[in-house]
């Protein structure tokens, strides 16, 4: 016999779909099938079921081999590492729940650590821009119900957020958008002819790295002022046409991704995109939203925000919270060799950071908490496998529009495995003892 669980939340991308159905064995130990998820979401669920999964912590030996250790030994190693370090970095957090993040922050406060999440390598520039100029935005249901102008700027939801267009932005029939896709005009700005671009009513094939100029030209067009014949590879007439299309809509939205945050001009691009959105509000209603990648990177920013007042790259080493991206951000800390212990959780800097940073991680005491084997677990001294959040344990997560959703546990983790929160709680309690606070 099997049972079907409904309203399951997908712990993969920032779309945070919450309508999945999962078939599990009657004893709740095996996950059989996943419905409604996209391919990558389904894969995430099924991956938890692989037979060769590592279920106990492993400590790297001097000869490079791994030795299985108990969770208690792993707790001891981690707590000692944090207690002895002068400037530990606690990085990741984007693929775990808010409960684990919260315990992690207690640890960081006690240890005097730097805390950072994956915004440091994706939407950090977005945060800097919104700190400059604000952010007019909305929830995804507003898009579904009202939006008739959809811009995807430097993002490719067809691949990175596969159900975004069907659930929220292009296809659904909402309250004021009863004709679904026919109610909407879709503009894609991307130097590449992506699968998303192929669906667009208008594709502006911007020259690589010229997003700032194009955004600015949009604003000039809104004011009906002079433009050169071609801006950022796009003819002025086409820019004016697209700007008019935005202006004439009832409710529009710009979704943007790493194509604008991590290319030349970085936060200045986003500044200008937000300025454009604000400008469009003089004519109609317009919003803008970052396409957040990891399913709970938003949550990490939220919890850091209410606990310390800053959403990423938070430095607690001086006994109070400081925030100064470029100084307190992970890549910079590692590149300068300032960090003397590396704690990674629920992310993979080993795959995404510059090689010089990864080399530094390999040199210092390091722990990687992750259900998977990853490049980061490979370079770390201790790998602590844990239960899959959103599959084997529930907990809170925040969707890309900041809507909080409680994830559901659908199957048990393999016997004896700890969750992130359980492991961190043990580390916290041990660290308290080491610091003489318990």
């Amino acid at each position, binding site marked *: 016999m099997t049972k079907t669980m409904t309203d399951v939340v997908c712990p993969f991308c920032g779309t945070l779909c919450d309508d999945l159905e999962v078939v599990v064995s009657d004893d709740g130990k095996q996950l059989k099938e996943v419905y409604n998820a996209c391919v990558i979401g389904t894969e995430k669920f099924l991956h938890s079921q692989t037979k060769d999964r590592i279920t106990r912590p492993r400590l790297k030996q001097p000869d490079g081999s791994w030795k299985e250790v108990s969770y208690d030994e792993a707790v001891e190693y981690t707590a000692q590492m944090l207690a002895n370090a002068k400037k530990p970095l606690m990085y990741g957090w984007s693929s775990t729940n808010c409960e684990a993040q919260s315990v992690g922050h207690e640890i960081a406060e006690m240890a005097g650590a730097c805390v950072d999440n994956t915004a440091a390598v994706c939407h950090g520039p977005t945060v800097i821009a919104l700190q400059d100029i604000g952010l*007019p935005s909305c*929830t995804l249901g507003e898009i579904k119900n009202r939006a008739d102008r959809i811009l995807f700027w430097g993002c490719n939801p067809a691949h990175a957020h596969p159900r975004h267009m069907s659930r929220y932005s292009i296809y659904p029939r909402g309250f004021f958008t009863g004709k679904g896709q026919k109610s909407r005009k879709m503009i894609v700005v991307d130097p590449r002819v992506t699968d998303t671009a192929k669906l667009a009513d208008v594709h502006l094939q911007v020259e690589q790295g010229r997003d700032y100029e194009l955004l600015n030209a949009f604003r000039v067009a809104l004011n009906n002022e002079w433009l050169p014949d071609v801006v950022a590879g796009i003819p002025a007439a086409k820019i004016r046409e697209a700007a008019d299309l935005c202006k004439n809509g009832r409710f529009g939205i710009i979704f943007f991704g790493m194509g604008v945050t991590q290319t030349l001009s970085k936060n200045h691009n986003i500044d200008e995109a937000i300025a454009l959105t604000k400008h469009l509000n003089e004519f109609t209603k317009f919003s803008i939203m970052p396409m957040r990648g990891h399913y709970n990177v938003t949550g990490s920013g939220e919890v850091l925000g*209410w*606990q310390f*007042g800053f959403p990423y790259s938070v430095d607690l080493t001086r006994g109070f919270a400081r925030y100064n991206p470029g100084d307190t951000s992970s890549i910079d800390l590692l590149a300068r060799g300032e960090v003397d212990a590396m704690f990674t959780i629920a992310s993979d800097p080993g795959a995404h950071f510059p090689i010089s940073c990864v080399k530094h991680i390999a040199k210092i005491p390091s722990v990687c908490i992750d259900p998977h084997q990853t490049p980061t677990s490979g370079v770390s001294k201790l790998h602590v496998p844990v239960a899959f959040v959103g599959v084997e344990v529930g907990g809170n997560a925040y969707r890309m529009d900041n809507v909080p959703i409680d994830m559901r546990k659908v199957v048990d983790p393999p016997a004896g495995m700890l969750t992130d929160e359980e492991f961190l709680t043990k580390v916290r309690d041990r660290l308290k003892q080491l610091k003489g606070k318990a």
Partner: protein
Amino acid sequence: MSEYIIKNGHVFDPTQGIKGDKADIAIKDGKIIKDSEVSSKAKVIDAKGKTVMAGAIEIHAHIAGPKVNLGRIYRPEDKLFTYQSTTANTRMAGGFSIPTTFKTGYEYAKMGYTTAMEAAMPPLFSRHVHEEMRDTPIIDEGAYPVFGNNWFVMEYLKNKEIENTAAYCAWLLRATKGFAIKLVNPGGTEAWGWGLNCLSVDDPVPYFDITPAEIIKGLIEANEYLGLPHSIHIHPNNLGNPGNYTTTLDTLKLSAGYKAKNKFGREQVMHLTHTQFHSYGGDTWANFESKAKEIMDFVNKAKNVTIDTGNVTLDETTTMTADGPFEHHLTELNHLKWANVDVELETAAGIVPYIYSPSISVCGIQWAIGLELALMAKDPMRCFITTDHPNAGPFTRYPRVIKWLMSNKARQDQIKAFKNSDKVVSATNIAGMDRELSLYDIAQMTRAGPAKSLGIPSMFGGLKPGMDADVVVYDFNPDKPSAPDQIEAAFSRAAHVFKSGIEVVTNGEVVNNGHKRTLWVNAKTKENPQVMRDVQEKFIKYYSVTQANYEALGHHIVPNPYAIEVDATQ
């Protein structure tokens, strides 16, 4: 649990009519008991020459949830020079106008505030609000979900379906663990979905074919149908605009003819919040003036209305409200950074930093209006002190507001300090007002009054035996002459604060994190299959989350709930 006896203090307790007489207050097992019943083991607190009051109650502040946190996140500058390091009893804490959750709890407690209400919870984000409240130590908290632009409410009220509106409100209070029915710019925020607004109570809401007046009256009726502890709590239309006092009077008049129906001792049917922002005359910023008198003439007569002030504190702060169109208007005026969040089917929110500069006459006039409202109040049990934190100023300025209200000298000094004092004086009545509020008035405006308005007078706001032992001792001797600044200093750092019988603050420092609770209202109604069908349908068609996930507020999110039960099945 420990026992305490607080001896020989000057007690101010409106619930028993005690006006500064010397009395002993005894505490046992979290409650106030008769001082004759306390055992010899009780710890003695010497309050000789000090002021003793119940814990204060915050009736309206924005302290937890999505827009508060967006404010924190988008204003790193708000943390400058504010950070306090970790101590034995406290987490590190920072921020000025939008403090971190930990700091919020500590700062309220240090001032003797033991209960606070988050004034605008977007229902879709209720989980976020509760997560932040969980991380706000010491004080009990509740949150008001917003209903004034909710599609269900507007659709039911268009057809005058009060019973269905009430059933829906009860369901939403349960789903979100909410405390009261809040309205923000009724209809206007829905209009903002299209970049529009409703500036009067008769402006029709686009598409929904209903007016703000109909929404307000309908929700009064639904609220009294349910018999909730609090009345509707309204931020009316047309906030912040010169000449808006007429809209405010039109809103207040909608309460006429309604009588409170509830078992909680509440007498009002409408609470009008941050009234300062709604008491403006003139028709431009050039001839902007106070209409506090016109508003208070009405309020003083209308026994079924309570208000709070929304005092401007002359600080740099962060404005944030579910009044989306207002914040857009504000960013067009001051050109500071604008954040906005429209929330599907429910509401919106906007955020803009603001500097209330003593050099700008409008800010001085706003400062005066807030104080005038309180000074003109004939019944301090119906007019409460707020700063609409952080909109008119941070809640940490309450001691200063109390100083201004208690001391004419402090007010005159401030008037003199304004760059354009002539302009402030000519546009207001403040200069000629010599009323000085007493400590008893203050106890009414910050304790007994809000407790009664919220429908929780049996628990909070007084020192009668049987009430929760929320007790504050201020190092302030009412028998001795004092300089105005002594008032501010005493109310800033209480000598002792007890929350539910636990001493949480001693000499202005947090000594215990207490046993924080989340207050919410569980209103039971008759089964209403139609409403449940409507809910189901809206989730399937229009929401972006499933109904089951919307309703799933887990125990770990509301860790220590305290439900106030209401039976509306009869």
